[in-house]
């Protein structure tokens, strides 16, 4: 179907892509090999810097004791809950602000303050108020994800072209019709791009919370490892966290592709 020139162009693009992937994998392998060698020859302190084989052994032993999946599951679950709650709450509050401009103006400075406050500072208060358990972790994650959602979604709402609102009014649309037929669908892509931010924010909040209070989860694993000076465990936990984060982010990206059919 395509001309020869176009075929060549496609081939070239494909080749380029493949080369990029290959280089990325190559870098990872080189990194692991160097890490292993440096550790084997004691150029870096293996006790402090661990090594790929030690990490692997730690994963195996966690797997054998059955703890590994419990920790992962707990963290994923907490993140999931915070993500859903934070996103919903953020959208609802942004909607109320859109509905009531007076309220929006009133709470604007408070939102700015809350947004710029490093939420981890609230940790100690949270433990006392909410209790040292999963609730604190989720509240911590909510604090982080909700406020940024409110700000982003509300900005999306107010960025809707005023001409479109005027158009709705020429048809005598009610405020709720404007909201449901224009504002919400018109901001859908903003809201979905918020998901991406939120899944990361929620995970950050959950890990912060687990550092502070928990008895389970990947954050706890890392914290525990550092307390007993088991650096293998700390590094293993961090690597597992990386993998979990990438998978969750990937899922949201997939969701985004499915939801935005036409843009």
């Amino acid at each position, binding site marked *: 179907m395509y001309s020869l020139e176009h075929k060549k162009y496609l081939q070239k693009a494909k080749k380029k892509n493949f080369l990029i992937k290959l280089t990325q994998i190559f870098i990872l392998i080189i990194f692991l090999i160097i890490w292993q060698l440096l550790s084997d020859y004691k150029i870096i302190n293996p006790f402090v810097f661990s090594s790929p084989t030690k990490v692997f052994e730690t994963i195996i032993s966690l797997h054998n004791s059955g703890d590994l999946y419990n920790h992962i599951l707990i963290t994923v679950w907490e993140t999931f809950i915070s993500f859903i709650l934070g996103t919903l709450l953020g959208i609802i509050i942004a909607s109320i602000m859109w509905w009531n401009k007076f309220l929006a103006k009133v709470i604007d400075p408070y939102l700015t303050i809350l947004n710029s406050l490093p939420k981890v500072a609230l940790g100690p208060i949270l433990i006392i108020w909410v209790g040292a358990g999963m609730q604190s972790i989720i509240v911590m994650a909510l604090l982080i994800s909700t406020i940024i959602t409110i700000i982003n979604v509300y900005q999306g709402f107010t960025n809707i*072209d005023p*001409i*479109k609102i*005027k*158009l*709705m*009014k*020429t*048809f*005598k*649309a009610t405020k709720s*019709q404007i909201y449901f*037929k*224009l504002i919400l*669908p*018109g901001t*859908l892509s903003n809201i979905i791009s918020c998901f991406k931010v939120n899944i990361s924010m929620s995970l950050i909040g959950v890990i912060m919370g687990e550092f502070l209070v928990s008895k389970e989860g990947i954050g706890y694993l890392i914290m525990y490892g550092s307390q007993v000076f088991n650096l293998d465990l700390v590094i293993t936990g961090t690597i597992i966290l990386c993998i979990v984060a990438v998978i969750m982010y990937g899922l949201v990206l997939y969701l985004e592709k499915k939801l935005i059919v*036409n*843009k």
Partner: protein
Amino acid sequence: MNELLKIKNLSKNYHTKQDETLAVDNFSFDLKNGDFVAIVGPSGCGKSTILNILAGLDTKSKGDIILNEKNKIGYMLQQDALFNWKTVLENCLLGLEINKNLTKENKDYVLDLLNTYGLKDFINSYPNTLSGGMRQRVALIRTLATKPDLLLMDEPYSALDYQTRLSVSDDVYQIIKKEKKSAIMVTHDIAEAISMADKIIILSKRPSTIKKIIDIKLTDKSTPIKNRKAKEFGYYYDLIWKEIDHDV
């Protein structure tokens, strides 16, 4: 012919923190059924304001607007304001949807309009695949879908290039005449006004008052493009050009 709309001594004041602006002053005009009226006037004189008030989007400060209860107003804006997440058909049904009037009959009417006015193959396309002229036609059909008796148009073609503008205004004119609508069109383009309207209202600088109302009588009046060749065209052009307050 009976009157569709009576406007008596309409005035509009805008209030801002800095100032109070009298945008429209003592504007009176009667519109007959089936009339096509154009409003021309210097930039910022209050043309959009008049249409906004007629459409109920803005409040008047003084005066009376008398419109028969039965008669509906449709407003076509300068920008097409199509929703890019809706198909052409869905966009056209927006007004009916809002008025909870989405009957089979009304939907067929819209489909009919789309078929008749060159959008047959684009009914299920999204607006981003349409040309500027097509988008403007979709916007017109969206306005016509609610079957208004009076059509308000605020510089409906100013976003289009000259060629498209000529052909779309020809189409729109024919749609309006065929569907037997009355229309008030605001425009900056004197030639466009002469080629389309039966009557032209010339407004003064702000606060806009009526400077002159000119009846356009062209020999062999037909479509806008052909009307431009009428022998009276130049005469009207000069007349209106002299009446409008030019700042430069």
